[in-house]
């Protein structure tokens, strides 16, 4: 191995990329990075053991691990000092830079990671298990934060489960219904007067397009919480106007149904705009070619443009499910028994708000992360353009990947995404 090659090693490794390679391959970072890991392991070792700790029965083993970690830190320090002293010709002078020594260092670093991991499991994971065990077995709400949280989630598990189920139902059904309504609406929205149309058809097209525009503006311009209240009470008023008794109305027009209607109608407007963006990104030449063959506007749309436009929209459309999981929380205002409502209920029982709402946040986070993961797998399956950052972008990159331009990316400004993310704020 020539020295020039040795000297070039770090930059080459960095080019190959990856944090793992960075730590695993470059021996200086093996020493430094792994030292941090060793210090963390030592810190865990200094923490008190919980009742579930398995190292409690293997005290000698833990002592060995502790001093092994400490030894590693010392060796690393020596290596660092050597390096500082020989900063000019470190690669040749330092015994730590010899290939054989580097090999040993690498192996030792794996051992350090292993020891630290064992200590982490023993203290952190088993500690949490201990808290869960004692909280679950407890007769009274534990005073500590995590214990109280676990206790309340456990005691209120039925309520939470019902809330989570309702949230998932609202989000999934709402998104699916909204997708079909949005298809209908975007079809109206994109109507253009065509030569063969008679006056009646022209009139209908103008009305349809206008309706879609107004619908989108109104729905996107008002908070979903207000919409849900209006829809719930309007439904109630209409049904009681038809002479039904309050109990009969409650049976038909439940808060869940009203919530589902709200979330569907609301999401329709956003999905319509997403679809419009995706469809307008389709090359107008596609429509021209279809029309030149004699296809009608409707045929060109349904057979050529819509399939491509919907494919373009898949990333932003699936983002809508994630948004609906979160935003369905505002529906608790009309009494829909969703995760938010369940949380408020449990918080009310125990009078411990902070712990329960953090538990709710964790539940929402898990739901949205699982949904994102499933959707990106689905998108991959459908060969759609990759899903961007699910929650934050105000622009959605829509790839016209199906075209002769697999590498060509059209940025479609889905201008509402930003206000969308904020729409549920209580």
């Amino acid at each position: 191995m020539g020295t020039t090659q040795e000297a070039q090693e770090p930059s080459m490794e960095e080019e190959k990329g990856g944090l793992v390679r960075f730590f695993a391959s470059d021996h200086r970072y093996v020493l430094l990075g792994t030292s941090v890991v060793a210090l963390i392991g030592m810190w865990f070792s200094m923490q008190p053991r919980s009742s579930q700790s398995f190292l409690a029965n293997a005290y000698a083993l833990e002592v060995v691990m502790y001093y092994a970690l400490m030894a590693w830190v010392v060796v690393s320090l020596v290596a660092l000092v050597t390096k500082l002293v020989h900063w000019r010709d470190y690669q040749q002078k330092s015994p730590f830079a010899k290939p054989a020594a580097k090999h040993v260092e690498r192996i030792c670093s794996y051992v350090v990671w292993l020891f630290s991991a064992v200590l982490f499991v023993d203290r952190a994971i088993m500690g949490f298990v201990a808290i869960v065990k004692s909280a679950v077995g407890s007769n009274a709400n534990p005073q500590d934060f995590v214990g109280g949280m676990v206790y309340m989630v456990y005691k209120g598990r039925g309520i939470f489960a019902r809330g989570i189920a309702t949230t998932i139902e609202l989000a999934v059904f709402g998104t699916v219904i909204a997708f079909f309504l949005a298809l209908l609406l975007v079809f109206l929205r994109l109507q253009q007067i065509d030569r063969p149309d008679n006056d009646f058809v022209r009139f209908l097209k103008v009305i349809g397009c206008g309706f879609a525009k107004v619908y989108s503006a109104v729905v996107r311009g008002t908070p979903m919480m207000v919409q849900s209240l209006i829809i719930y009470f309007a439904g109630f008023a209409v049904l009681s106007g038809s002479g039904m008794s309050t109990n009969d109305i409650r049976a038909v027009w439940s808060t869940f149904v009203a919530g589902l209607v709200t979330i569907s109608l609301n999401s329709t407007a956003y999905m319509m705009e997403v679809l419009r963006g995706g469809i307008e990104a389709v090359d107008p030449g596609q429509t021209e070619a279809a029309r030149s063959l004699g296809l009608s506007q409707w045929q060109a749309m349904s057979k050529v443009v819509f399939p491509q436009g919907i494919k373009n929209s898949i990333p932003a459309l699936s983002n809508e499910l994630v948004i609906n999981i979160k935003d369905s929380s505002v529906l608790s205002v009309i009494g829909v028994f969703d995760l938010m409502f369940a949380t408020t209920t449990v918080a009310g029982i125990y009078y411990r708000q902070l712990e329960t709402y953090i538990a709710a946040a964790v539940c929402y986070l898990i739901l949205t992360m699982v949904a994102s993961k499933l959707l990106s797998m689905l998108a991959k399956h459908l060969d759609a353009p990759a899903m961007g950052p699910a929650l934050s972008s105000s622009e959605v990159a829509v790839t016209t990947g199906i075209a002769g331009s697999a590498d060509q990316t059209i940025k479609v400004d889905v201008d509402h995404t930003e206000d969308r993310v904020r729409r549920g704020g209580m």
Partner: protein
Amino acid sequence: MASESTQGREPVIRIEGLRKSFGKHVVLRNIDFEVMPGEVVTIIGASGSGKSTLLRCINLLETPDAGHVWFHGQDLAAEHVDVNKLREKIGMVFQGFNLFNNLNVLQNCTLAPVTLKKASKADAEAEAMRHLDEVGLADFAKSPVTSLSGGQKQRVAIARALCMKPDLMLFDEPTSALDPEIVGEVLSVMRDLAKDGMTMVVVTHEMEFAKNVSDKVVFMDQGVIAEEGDPRQIFTNPKKPRTREFLSRYLEDKPDQVQEA
């Protein structure tokens, strides 16, 4: 050649007093123009002279402001004409191919026949395979269009148009988006089509094609037809100075074509 044999017959396309402007920008001023059955007409002229717009007025992708376009004696400019029905008989080939990206090669060819002529899928596919074979792409029937080269795409586009059994084919610079070495494969398909007696209007910068294949050359300049006539006459002895200027500039730019011509 074809012009003599078609004397006295109805023109496929007759255009009279055609005008078209985009906003204040007048693109076509008073165009008169005729295409007889079996005739191959090439339209040449500088970019921006209105060639594409003229072509697109023939199948009403652009709506004329004034004037008439008769297709087999039927006035296309009349209100509430069923343009969809008429377009079935007028094939068009675009510079950018415009193949349907959501469909494979065969589906590209069968979409319109199955949708519009209520042909059975099997019949439409048999017909499409015949045309794909003509353009030498039968092996690619099941390929996604993305996998094709530019020349192959354009040949599929021609086959797709032929599947509707058109009376007239419009070509808008069919080879301009292609690399020079694959222009020939598309031109040879078009040459075969002309030989089979297809009526064609071709906007092109391929002067060799215009000279040797077409029955009539139309030179457009700033929205008017500056000169039209027999290709040999236009290329060897243009009457108008503008035509001479354009051709000399054009042939200067492309010295290889002078030799071919």
